[in-house]
């Protein structure tokens, strides 16, 4: 065990022991421990195997940002062990190693696989012979990846709650800067949300002994009304929307102002075998000690280029480690910290750095040497026995979110990294992300950013000037040395890693550069550097340095890769959220369910496809009567003095001369004369028309009608009544009798003719009756208030049951309408079909006075024979072609397609609609249908199969 005595500000609760298992073996820790801190305290140093070479990897960052301690937990892969808290009974399993974490046979790729797995090997090594690629692919896919998804679907599912949150200011980052910014903005009256990826607020300040100050800042923030989301990383910046993931909730935050206080990321150093377990960021080692009271080692070599490393060295020494410091700076910064290091009796080697780590599967020694500007050792250096190499390669501002939001960054040699220079309106940077490294400056910069954000919202920017002056008077940042691309003792052994996530080495980047991938973006795509779970946090700067050294470019020119979301890794399931599938249901939907209907999607409606017996249902309609719910039909009311003219301009046929109480069929076309929708128009009075559309088309028709109404400036109003008016079609030879029994209306053929509309009460409910019939039988469409629809439906079904009426669904309706060759727009027509092609020449009234939509195109179309026509067909052999099957032209080339096909129970044959070459569009012509290897002979007809003269319909 390496648990320290109680540390001030430690996160663990020693009174609450927690038991869990790691790879099936018992493990223990305390409440507040992470998986890594608990296992580390128990003596484990290897937490994972690397992605490509399966090298053992130890802890790196200690804060959930690296990929060195990813575990499989309760079936979920890729969980970050250095930030995931333990809980009683948790089952933690290693990933990416077999048979065990400590002995992984795939390590062979590291020992002997080098020649086969150079950078970009998947583009070169396994491509010949080509026929073996499927085998290679299978093996590579099996070997690649991190962790395994559970096989069972139910184990892969979880629920994520979406929560939309609007606020004035979103502060990203809960360190000193973020807390100060949030508090200031809230105190100035802004509605503020603060999010931080860590479960405990405070950031670096809390780890570096400032936990009391953190508590104070957090208290002030809460008192000011800041909504604090902890354990909640901001995933990215999507045009002002910032998704913040917190456990099972995805907060979709939209703020007017954003303060990014995401801190800085301590960088690793590059030297031979810099991935050995025991090579750790000095901040990570310090975090283990400060937050979890875990002693990270016994003897440490701290290699640093900045003051932070020195500060961490002092902290490690204070908890009992025997420390040697190698500072690359010739004077170790020349500040107070160097003096404190020496005063503490710590060996301080200036101008030195670590050039090699040594050890079998963990750090045993560090070779430290003085190096030149390119990192080459000057002399043999010295070897130090140690079990920890704590490195601080400078800090890189966590700029990704700022850059995603439109900020720009440039390289600044004095901080050996990139800094933001330009921010778009509404975006503020604070703390280390804005380049401040001293605690006081970090906090003051936060307060300034918060005040500025509030001021941008119109609040008084009280105190901003004073705070700026105070910030200007604070000491400048301590000097930082620029680490070499690689510190090297000149030896050939050992890999020097630039990217631990993807096992990308210095050699890989160099080789890629020689192969022509000489920009960071190209190198990224070729070597996969920065593409791992850490998203370049620890590899972007090292890779840029190698590339700069190889190309001779300065770091500013090499630049950074494009910042893209997600900034933090996130399970796909989190993004899925609550399934919001807006389903429309008719007012009689309950009755369909009670009748056992097969309910299917039809556009955005749930509709009764059939009631279990589509054949019987269609037969009943033609033998007695049937009722179908057609409430899904679009229904528009067009009213006003210019309503008739409006419709004349929208339809190719005339509507303004329609007599009251009469109905007319119409199709709408695009300006190109192509059919867009169809339906009926019923005139209610001089200024009022009731327009029906297809079920799926109503939104488009309403939009089009409204757009043209506005354009033409006509005096009319359009109201969509679709959801408020239910409709049902009563059809069949007994329909009149059924209806007569339910109303006082004279339903005789003379008094209520085909294409008449009447008002009537049915079972006490006011209804409008339209005598039309899509299914080809004597029929009535009954429109009534949806709130009374069940009552009307029940009354009709009850009355009709005496004569054999049956409810029928969509499928029987499709068979029946096909017998009449009634077209379904969208199924039998496509985006190129004109009324002429659909055989509706009669509907286009080119002699109309008014201009109408599509007129110009239709005039031209009328002058030419369409290349294809929509016709009916039968298959004498009885084969049922698939809808979409190809119709062949005379030369055998595809020239049309089957749009609808069904077997008609009444006719005892296969019938359908198809587009066919115009030359074959005559009655009796024979066509050939090619259908998935079948050739089906069919005979063309242009007249309905059933009731060709419409006598039944008009009866």
């Amino acid at each position, binding site marked *: 065990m390496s648990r320290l005595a109680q540390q001030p500000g430690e996160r663990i609760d020693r009174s609450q022991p927690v038991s869990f298992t790691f790879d099936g073996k018992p493990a223990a820790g305390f409440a507040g421990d992470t998986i890594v801190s608990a296992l580390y305290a128990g003596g484990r140093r290897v937490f994972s195997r690397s992605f490509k070479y399966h090298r053992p990897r130890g802890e790196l960052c200690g804060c959930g940002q690296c990929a060195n301690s990813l575990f499989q937990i309760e079936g979920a892969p890729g969980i970050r062990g250095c930030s995931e808290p333990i809980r009683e009974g948790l089952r933690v399993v290693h990933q990416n190693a077999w048979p065990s974490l400590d002995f992984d046979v795939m390590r062979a790729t590291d020992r002997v696989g080098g020649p086969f797995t150079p950078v970009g090997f998947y583009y070169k090594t396994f491509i010949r012979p080509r026929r073996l690629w499927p085998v290679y692919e299978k093996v590579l896919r099996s070997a690649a990846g991190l962790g395994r998804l559970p096989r069972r679907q139910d184990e892969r599912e979880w629920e994520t709650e979406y929560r939309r949150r609007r606020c004035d200011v979103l502060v990203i980052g809960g360190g000193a800067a973020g807390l100060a910014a949030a508090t200031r903005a809230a105190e100035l009256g802004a509605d503020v949300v603060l999010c931080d990826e860590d479960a405990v607020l405070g950031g670096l300040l809390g780890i570096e002994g400032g936990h009391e100050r953190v508590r104070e800042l957090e208290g002030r923030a809460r008192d000011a009304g800041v909504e604090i989301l902890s354990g909640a990383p901001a995933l990215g910046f999507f045009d002002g929307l910032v998704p913040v993931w917190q456990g099972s909730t995805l907060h979709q935050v939209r703020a007017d102002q954003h303060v990014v206080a995401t801190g800085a990321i301590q960088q690793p150093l590059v030297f031979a075998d810099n991935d050995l377990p025991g090579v750790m960021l000095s901040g990570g080692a310090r975090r283990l000690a400060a937050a979890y009271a875990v002693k990270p080692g016994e003897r440490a070599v701290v290699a640093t280029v900045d003051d932070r490393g020195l500060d961490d060295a002092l902290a490690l020494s204070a908890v009992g480690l025997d420390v040697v410091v190698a500072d690359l700076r010739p004077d170790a910064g020349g500040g107070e910290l160097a003096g404190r290091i020496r005063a503490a009796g710590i060996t301080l080697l200036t101008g030195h750095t670590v050039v090699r780590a040594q050890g079998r599967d963990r750090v045993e020694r560090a070779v430290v040497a003085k190096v030149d500007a390119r990192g080459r050792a000057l002399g043999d250096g010295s070897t130090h026995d140690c079990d920890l190499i704590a490195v601080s390669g400078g800090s890189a501002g966590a700029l990704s979110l700022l850059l995603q939001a439109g900020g720009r960054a440039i390289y600044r040699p004095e901080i050996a990294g990139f800094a933001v220079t330009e921010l778009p309106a509404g975006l503020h940077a604070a703390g280390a992300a804005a380049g401040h490294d001293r605690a006081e400056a970090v906090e003051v910069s936060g307060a300034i950013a918060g005040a500025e954000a509030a001021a941008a919202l119109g609040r008084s920017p009280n105190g901003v000037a004073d705070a700026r002056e105070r910030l200007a008077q604070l000491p400048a940042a301590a000097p930082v040395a620029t680490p070499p691309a690689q510190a090297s003792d000149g030896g050939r052994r050992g890999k020097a890693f630039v990217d631990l996530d993807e096992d990308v080495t210095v050699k890989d980047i160099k080789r890629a550069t020689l192969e022509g991938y000489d920009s960071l973006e190209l190198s990224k795509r070729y070597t996969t550097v920065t593409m791992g779970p850490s998203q370049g946090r620890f590899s972007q700067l090292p890779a840029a340095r190698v590339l700069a050294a190889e190309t001779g470019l300065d770091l500013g020119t090499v630049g950074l890769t494009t910042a893209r979301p997600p900034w933090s890794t996130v399970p796909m399931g989190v993004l899925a959220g609550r399934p919001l599938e807006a389903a429309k249901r008719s007012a009689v939907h309950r009755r369909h369910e009670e009748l056992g209907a097969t309910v299917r999607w039809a556009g955005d409606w749930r509709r009764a496809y059939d009631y279990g017996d589509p054949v019987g249902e269609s037969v009943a309609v033609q033998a007695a009567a049937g009722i179908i719910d057609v409430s899904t039909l679009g229904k528009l009311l067009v009213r006003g003095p210019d309503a008739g003219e409006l419709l004349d301009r929208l339809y190719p046929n005339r509507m303004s001369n329609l007599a009251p109480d009469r109905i007319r069929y119409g199709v709408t076309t695009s300006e190109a004369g192509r059919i867009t929708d169809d339906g009926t128009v019923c005139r209610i009075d001089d200024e009022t028309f009731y327009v029906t559309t297809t079920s799926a088309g109503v939104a488009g028709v309403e939009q089009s009608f409204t757009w043209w109404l506005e354009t033409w400036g006509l*005096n009319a109003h359009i109201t969509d009544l679709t959801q408020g008016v239910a409709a049902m079609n009563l059809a069949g030879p007994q329909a009149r009798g059924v209806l007569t029994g339910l109303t006082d209306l004279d339903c005789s053929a003379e008094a209520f003719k085909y294409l008449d509309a009447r008002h009537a009460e049915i079972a006490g409910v006011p209804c409008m009756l339209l005598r039309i019939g899509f299914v080809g039988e004597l029929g009535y469409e009954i429109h009534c208030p949806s709130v009374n629809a069940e009552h009307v439906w029940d009354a009709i079904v009850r009355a009709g049951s005496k004569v054999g009426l049956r409810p029928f669904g969509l499928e029987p309706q499709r068979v029946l309408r096909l017998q009449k060759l009634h077209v379904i727009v969208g199924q039998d027509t496509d985006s190129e079909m004109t009324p002429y092609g659909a055989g509706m020449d009669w509907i286009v009234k080119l002699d109309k006075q008014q201009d109408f939509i599509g007129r110009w195109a239709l005039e031209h179309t009328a002058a030419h024979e369409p290349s294809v026509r929509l016709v009916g067909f039968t298959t004498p052999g009885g084969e049922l072609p698939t809808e979409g099957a190809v119709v062949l032209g005379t030369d055998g080339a595809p020239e049309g397609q089957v749009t609808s096909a069904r077997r008609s129970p009444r006719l005892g044959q296969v019938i359908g609609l198809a587009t066919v070459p115009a030359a074959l569009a005559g009655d009796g012509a024979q066509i050939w249908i090619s259908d998935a290897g079948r050739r089906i002979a069919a005979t063309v007809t242009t007249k309905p199969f059933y009731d060709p003269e419409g006598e039944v319909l008009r009866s």
Partner: protein
Amino acid sequence: MSLAFLTAAGGASAPAALSPFDAATTADGGVFEVRDGWRIASGFGHPAAEEQACEHAVGWADVSHLGKLEIQVSADAADELAGLAGGLALGRAVRDRDAWWCLLTPVRALLLCDPGVLAGLRQELEANAALKVLDVTSQFAALRIGGPLARETFARFCALDLRPERMPVGACMQGSVARTPGVVVRMATDQYVLLTGAALAIYLWSVVSDAGGRLGGRPVGVDALSAPSELEEAGTHA
């Protein structure tokens, strides 16, 4: 011919109008009574729990029986519309003559009222030749959502900015609600009325139940949230 078929059956012998939520409220154990010709869920069998939900979490009640009139005018009569109810303004719900008047566009307004006053108001409005009045009661499903977590409930399925400074009591907002077009009126500090298309009622009920249920809420009877709203109390005129 007339537009009578747009208005629910009336009169003593008429069948009760069924709310578009009826299947859902029935499935959730609704207790019903007929008021003003409508079958209304007056409770869900747990009055204390319903009261508790409204007081400490969130409750939602079916108020689809509220009368709804659409008023349209031509562009040159927009001032006529804006002058109704003492002055209408976009984004505001004006309380006047036992109804809420919401100007949705400069030429279109929606009026919400108790069923009992619907016919009178309609008659009064139709007397003005400049106004085209239509009974759209059946067109919309209406939910009253109230309680301290009402806004949090909306946040689970709706991106509208319902913060008090953006949507004060008496405000009216149109937008996407659970991925469908909706109208939201804030009736009181913690009370909203949500209108969506009637055909989407069952879907919407499931969304609200799922979101509100996780916050400790539950469906409540129509009277549970009918305490006089601040808007009603103040007789707010925008």
